[in-house]
């Protein structure tokens, strides 16, 4: 039982002490200085006017946002949204199945399996992406095996298939962990009961496990969808850079084009989209929890 729940049980709320507030200062300061403040600068810059040398002149204009209505930008945005959604769905399906497998193993084995999921994180993201070039490229094992059967010159790189594989590989662990966490707290007897009452494999998942692990699934959806939108190395290295994502667009605007205001405007649009998706997930969570509460009440 945690301190707060105990406090509630005792019928009074412990007042935070002055000392604990002091301990919060480093955390608050870093959030404000490294998170909130830069965000405000980006938001301000998105309404500014760029000068010829990549600097920012004071001024207030909505032109940066108006320019984004040009179909060339919306195409990139839609492509990124589509790829982000695809990656999220694939990650969730595979993440769900993997988590279910891990949860159904004996408890002492689960830690080891989770460790296997974490191990790739010990290597740098860029290095792992380069490894995929070797695996999928013409000199790699896949091409080698196909070569035995007389299919020469096979290479998945560069292609959008390679991008999808790279994204899946990168974000699968972040999908597995939240789903695993919420699945672990499901009482195994619920599953046994459902099976005893004649539910099929599919029925057990659809009516028992899937609804009960939905908070983890929604969390995983957020954790995969949002970062996918910002990815910019994978499309270049694995996809050949012909179909840029929003992340690539922002990098190009900030550096090559020396157009900070436009880059800031795209960043803000992306931020709003992400906040909107978070709000949607929040709403969905709230609805599912109230629904569960009401069903519990009616059962009682």
């Amino acid at each position, binding site marked *: 039982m945690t301190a707060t729940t105990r406090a509630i049980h005792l019928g009074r709320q412990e007042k935070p002490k002055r000392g604990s*507030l002091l301990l919060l*200062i480093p955390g*608050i*300061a870093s959030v*404000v*200085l490294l998170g909130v403040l830069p965000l405000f600068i980006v938001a301000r810059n998105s309404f500014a006017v760029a000068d*010829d*040398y*990549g*600097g920012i002149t004071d001024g207030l204009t909505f032109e940066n946002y108006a320019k984004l209505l040009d*179909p*060339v*930008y919306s*195409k*990139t945005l839609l492509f990124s949204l589509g790829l982000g959604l695809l990656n999220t769905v694939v990650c969730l399906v595979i993440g769900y199945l993997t988590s279910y497998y891990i949860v159904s193993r004996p408890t002492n084995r689960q830690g080891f399996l989770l460790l296997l999921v974490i191990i790739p994180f010990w290597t740098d993201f860029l290095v792992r992406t*380069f490894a995929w*070039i070797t695996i999928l*490229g*013409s*000199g790699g094992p896949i091409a080698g095996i196909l070569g035995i059967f007389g299919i020469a010159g096979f*290479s998945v*790189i*560069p292609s959008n298939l390679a991008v999808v594989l790279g994204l899946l590989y990168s974000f699968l662990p972040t999908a597995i962990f939240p789903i695993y966490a919420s699945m672990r707290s499901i009482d195994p007897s619920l599953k046994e009961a459902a099976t005893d009452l004649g539910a099929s494999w599919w029925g057990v998942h659809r009516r028992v496990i899937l609804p009960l692990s939905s908070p983890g699934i929604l969390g995983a959806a957020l954790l995969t969808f949002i970062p996918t939108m910002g990815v910019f190395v994978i499309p*270049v*290295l694995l*996809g*050949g*850079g*012909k179909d*840029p994502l929003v992340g690539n667009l922002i990098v*190009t605007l*900030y*550096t*090559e*084009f*020396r*157009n900070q205001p436009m880059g800031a405007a795209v960043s803000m649009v992306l931020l709003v989209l992400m906040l909107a998706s978070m709000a949607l997930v929040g709403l969905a969570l709230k609805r599912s929890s109230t629904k569960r509460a009401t069903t519990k009440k009616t059962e009682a």
Partner: protein
Amino acid sequence: MKKLIVASVGVVAALALSSCSGTGGDAGPSTELNVYAWADEIPQTVFDAFTEETGIAVNVDNFDSNETMISKLAAGNSGYDIVEPSQYAVQQLVGQELLEPLDKSKIEGIDNLAPKFADPSYDPGLQYSVPWVWGTTGLLYNAACTGGEEITSWTSLFDPKWKGKINMLDNMLAAYIAGLQVNGYGADSTDEAEIAKATESLIEQKPLLSGYNSTNYGELVASGDVCISEAWGGTSTAKIVEQNPDVHYVLPEEGGSLWVDGLSIAKGAPHQDAAYEFINFLLRPEIAAMATNDGGLASANAAAQEHVTDQGLLSNAAVYASDEQVANADFIVDPGKAMRFYQDGWTRVKAS
């Protein structure tokens, strides 16, 4: 909460102020020098030799693009003394007043520079920069992959014959070198109609491409995944040409382009005396030759050539392109107001 924010802002302000006051004021000769340079373009051996001779400690930071370097300087209080911008970046830095004009009376050995760098278009009279290393943008191809066919022109990059086996550098200005020159225009064009024509060519070219890649294009050509690639000359390209007899680097008959990275003094540099000492040290022929001997790059210093240990590099086009080869090459300069035409065009190419 409000008090907390005020307090934390106060702490940061105090820190910033104290770090400022630490840099100014001392009158004696500097004992350190802060250099911000391209990765591997000034070999470590050069810094070591400089420290050994002068006793000045050198702190080196690296950047991987001019844009990164410019934005860091533009942010202010970088603390750097020496920066190493490329030719068009010199123009941008001068435009933003981020460089100190060079006091020529403090510089010795500038006559050692090759004639083509003595009075370049991007920095007339070398008022802000001293050229250090240079290179070219051209074509890299794998003869095994092209079936022995020699590639000599940009037109090959636009030829449907090589569909799916062509790579372009993922860089706007680099892509437009090929796009403009293949149409017979100069790579430094600022004409809207010419740039629009180049954009059209690049859009038509896109379905033929394997991709846009400026990271590992050399490996792609060496492995044969790509037959022909637009390429930057320099260390990594020279290495790939050296290791693989099928891979060749050429300047296209349309001209190609020249780049040059030079030494400049950052505005408000805290150790200017040491910065001049460093520039003079790097102008010495035997030190300048280390850029080739230890860095694999072409030195802008003509007098350095006799100090190059591997004289073969002087005829390797990926390092020292000959004067005839670079005769038609254009310097890529800052397009200024025409930048807009390039950007609109490149956005369209990328979205097509």
